[in-house]
């Protein structure tokens, strides 16, 4: 049936079909590197798309001190806005802004990352803190809602076991309290906040520090404690207004800094203390940060041990800070007992990300990602010598989390 004449007629269609196939075959780019089994560092890379949206990739790395760190073909993908906090051997990714899920990221026995949990909340969670070895407490507090909700979460399964709701009016009649820090110590949950207008983000109330105290595990509202020696505790989205030491003493940081969400400063910055088991500010303790630093304030705090904490210190006075800029910052180690601030050598002044500080402690070292020039680099800080060493370049627009599992 198909004579020679017919064959020549078929030549053109066959050719065009071949060209189509050729095009398709160009497409088969398959590279899926297997993760290193002994990768103990986990870095959450935030990548911005041309459409302005962010996608987060939580990627394991063995070495963060050389080469470059890329999410190409590896890591757990999470599109949206996520905040990462490590509690024991799990990294909890908390969906912010719109996404309202919490996922636990931990390691399998073979060293691969796995995701646990399937919970979802109507408003995004402000934070998750450790209650005990098997329980976490999550806070749901939004300027658009008139309720404050505490969710008790099973840390292994990442599921909500109970929820306790309170009226926002318990803690203030002002509009509206904005979350700045939470910690559980002994039989109390301490919640710090500052008043920020939900529409204009102005902060007209900056004269005193306020912390709401709830019972734990009952999560009943007890009282709001106040102190006039410094301004409100914490700032916008840094989530480090309250830290706790080994003894259970809670330290509360105030900075009233425009770079971290304040429209005015009316009281000097400093650190207050609530002694373990107490529900009052320790009137014998005040760390006058501005006096030690020459007028500068601390934006972020991460407790390290033995009364020492890693601090991101603003390198300009409050009056010089651009609003919301979270910087420029210098990294220091502070001693809460001797009330000293020691800057780290070899680490450049840098910009902040306006969110929870991404840093991980590993023995005497702290690893942090520092934006520098056009790139972002991992720095390893030796907390004994107060010096830093530059490491790998991170292929991301910012680093949302750095952990060790």
């Amino acid at each position, binding site marked *: *049936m*198909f004579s020679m004449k*017919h064959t020549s*007629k078929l030549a*053109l*269609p066959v050719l*065009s*079909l071949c*060209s*189509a196939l050729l*095009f*398709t075959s160009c497409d088969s780019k398959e590279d*899926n590197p297997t*993760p290193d089994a002994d990768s103990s560092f986990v870095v959450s890379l935030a*990548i*911005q*798309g*041309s*459409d*302005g*949206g962010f*996608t987060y*990739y939580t990627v394991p790395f063995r070495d963060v001190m050389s080469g470059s760190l890329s*999410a*190409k073909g*590896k*890591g*757990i*993908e999470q*599109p*949206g806005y996520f905040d990462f906090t490590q509690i024991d051997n799990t990294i909890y990714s908390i969906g912010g*802004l*719109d*996404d309202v899920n919490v996922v636990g990221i931990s390691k399998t026995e073979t060293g691969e990352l796995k995701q646990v949990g*399937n*919970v*979802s*909340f109507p408003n995004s969670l402000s934070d998750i803190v450790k209650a005990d070895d098997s329980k976490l407490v999550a806070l749901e507090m939004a300027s658009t*809602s*008139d*309720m404050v909700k505490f*969710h008790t979460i099973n840390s292994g399964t990442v*599921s*909500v076991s109970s*929820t306790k709701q309170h009226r926002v009016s318990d803690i203030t009649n002002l509009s509206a309290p904005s979350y700045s820090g939470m910690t559980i110590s002994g039989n109390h949950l301490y919640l710090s906040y500052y008043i920020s207008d939900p529409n*204009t*983000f*102005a902060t007209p109330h900056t004269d005193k520090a306020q912390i709401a105290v709830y019972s734990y595990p009952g999560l009943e509202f007890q009282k709001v404690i106040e102190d006039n020696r410094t301004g409100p505790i914490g700032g916008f989205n840094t989530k480090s207004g309250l830290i706790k030491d080994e003894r259970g003493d809670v330290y509360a940081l105030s900075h009233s800094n425009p770079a971290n969400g304040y*429209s005015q400063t009316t009281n000097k910055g400093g650190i207050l203390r609530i002694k373990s088991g107490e529900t009052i500010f320790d009137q014998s303790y005040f760390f006058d940060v501005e006096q030690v630093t020459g007028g500068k304030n601390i934006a972020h705090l991460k407790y390290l041990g033995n009364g020492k904490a890693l601090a991101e210190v603003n390198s300009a006075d409050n009056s010089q800070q651009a*609003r919301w*800029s*979270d*910087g420029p910052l210098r990294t220091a180690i502070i001693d809460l007992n001797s009330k000293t601030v020691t800057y780290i050598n070899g680490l450049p002044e840098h*910009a*902040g*990300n*306006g969110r929870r500080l991404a840093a991980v402690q590993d023995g005497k070292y702290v690893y942090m990602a520092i*934006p520098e020039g056009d790139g972002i680099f991992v720095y390893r800080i030796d907390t004994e010598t107060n010096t830093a060493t530059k490491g790998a370049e991170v292929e991301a*627009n*910012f680093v949302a989390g750095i952990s060790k599992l």
Partner: protein
Amino acid sequence: MQQFIKVIGSFVSMLALMCLDYTAWAQEADRASVVGKVQTASGEALTGVSVVLQEAKRGTVTDAAGHFELTGLTPGDYTLLLSFIGFETEQRSISLKASQKLEVNVSLREKSFEMKGVEIIGKSATREVNEQPYAVTAISTRELQNSTSDAKEVLNRVSGVRVMEEGGLGSNLSFTLNGFSGDQVKFFLDGIPMDNFGSSLQMSDIPVNTIDRIEVYKGVVPVWLGTDALGGAVNIITNRKANFLDASYSIGSFNTHRLSLNGAYTNPANGYTFRGNVNYNYSDNNYRVLVPIKEGSNIIDTTEVERFHDRYRSATVKLETGWVNKKYADNLLFGVIASGNDKQVQTGATMNSVYGGIIRNSQSVVPTLRYSKDNFLLEGLNVSLYSAYNITKSEVIDTLRGVTYNWLGEATYTPGSNNGELRRTYTTFDDNDFNSQLNAGYVLSPMHSLAFNYALSFFRRETFDAENPDRIENQFPRSLNKQVLGLAYKFDPTERWSTTLFSKFYLLHAKTSKEYDFALETQRIEALETSKNNFGYGLATTYFLLPDLQLKASYERTNRMPWATEVFGDGLFILPNPDLGPEQSNNFNAGAAYGFKLGNDHQFNLESSFIYRDAEDLIYQVVRVATPETYYDNLSQTRTLGVEGSLKYQWRDMLRLGGNFTFQDITDQADVIYNESYTNSGYQRNFQKGFRLPNIPYMFGNANAGLTFRNVVLPESVWNLNYYYNYVEQYFLSWAELGSRDTKKVIPTQSSHNLELSAGFREGKYNFAIECRNLTDAMLYDKYYLQKPGRAFYLKFRYVL
């Protein structure tokens, strides 16, 4: 059709004659002549038959009565050749004596008598469209008239085209054409932009039997459509027959009912015409979806549930009256379109959030005027004008307080809470939209012609939110004024070659409001007024290498202005973006189409084309997994490389097989991204340069097979059995390449099968069709896991007078 063949035949004959060497007419008395009549075997006179006296190099064509006459011939022996398209050439030997007037009457035998199939030489409107120099596909819906399909389903079978649906009947549709999506592709109804018909007249509301054909222009859009569409255009041509009545009703799964009544009456004496069209669509859309079930904050299960808040109703009445074929107008028609719809809203841009109370509705009244006249004032000057004034009122209602729903339809009440389900609102939009389109074409000579187009669109919106009457942004006027001027020159140097050169000038003026200095002391909302104008140009050319092998190429530098919904939002899930700018691109298309026959019964048609597109500030809908809300934004640099092909096979008129395949690689080519936040703000490296754009299918295809039987079971009956297969390769919801493949959010590979049986009786007077869609009950999605209906059945009855 016969008439049409004759016209073409006479044209060809004239051409043949021009090639003959004319000798001077001799006036001598002893010259001889030949006269005669040419007719068909059945005695019908044939007009335009070429009559050639070979040796004398003389010729003529037959007149309307089939007569011919050749005079002034030198006596002698001659061969008389009579030829006509569709007939066997007849050869007669004649001998002419001096002064003789010989009469030769000839009957021509039709060629088709010797063939097993009928070969149609005249070109259908569909094929003529396909042969334009533009990359265009025209789909005739003639074979589909009885089908339960609507315009959207017909389009989805065109190569390079994907219709993305958010759900069932009445759900939002978006359309991608070679990677161009949404409103980069413009829709026209009979050459008139559909934008101004409002949401109550959508593609899925147009039943297939009101449609004559659909033309899909890929890339370069002809000037006469006069638009700033940059990805292409779809022109739906409705049935323009003078007298007809067509009524259909279809019923299907999910309580779907669709009624369509369609007709036209034209008085042959005075040209008075009246046409009307009534459509009604209803569906509960309560199909099953696989979704997570929440209890409190925990997701306790993932199970199949019925959608419970997704009813859609729409009705459209379209009336047109006026005069046709008058001295002053070929068409002078006044019309009015009245339409309304209401829709329950089940989900936003993703299925993570579910709603049980949100409703939106819309009502439109559109007076229209249509005028056209060929040879207006001047021979060869054709003008047409279409104007429409659209008054639309629409509402977005989210007024439940403190209520949230889960997928089981269970409501949770939070006492004291005033929160809406999404954002408490009762918003009313009052839209006024004037659209006018003026076309003028002038044929200078068969080789040269000019076309001019002016399109004006003025949109104005007033917004009021009863739940937030003081909302500042609603106090500002919103308007969008667009004008497009186009001029084209068409050059047809030979029958085989046609080229069009064109330029377009675009003007945009927009008024809206914008929030400045978010969260700073200077935070404020201010009026924003922008004016833009751009210039575009292009070239489209086509060449027939063989009579059945056509090559096409086109290039265009073009612009697209954002339009109302993109800038102003829709009041619910689409957020406004006052900063949205126009998009520019360089488009290049090249393609070939080839049709050939193997033997008499096997007809093949092949088409393939290549697309290259380089776009700046691509207007792109940003959908995030995390939120039910979306918005439009500009992507600074993207590139599309694509290839598509289609193959059709027909055996007699009994069996049809076809398929098409599209591969499009749309990649981000921007070196930098811009961070708008207050920390690390400014330009940063784009780590996703060269990666494929998320949430757009890149490889897809479909295939179909059809069988036609005539006069089986019943006399005068036609039975059609059609099978359609659709395939979409898996694609990512986020930018490709970063992250491990197993954690990436994907829309998995999809295959769906539709089967349809239709029958027509009494020469197409009574018809019915039965269809099963998604035969295998596969999980189908378009866009972010928005699940589409599973297996569904539809039954349609149609009566044609």
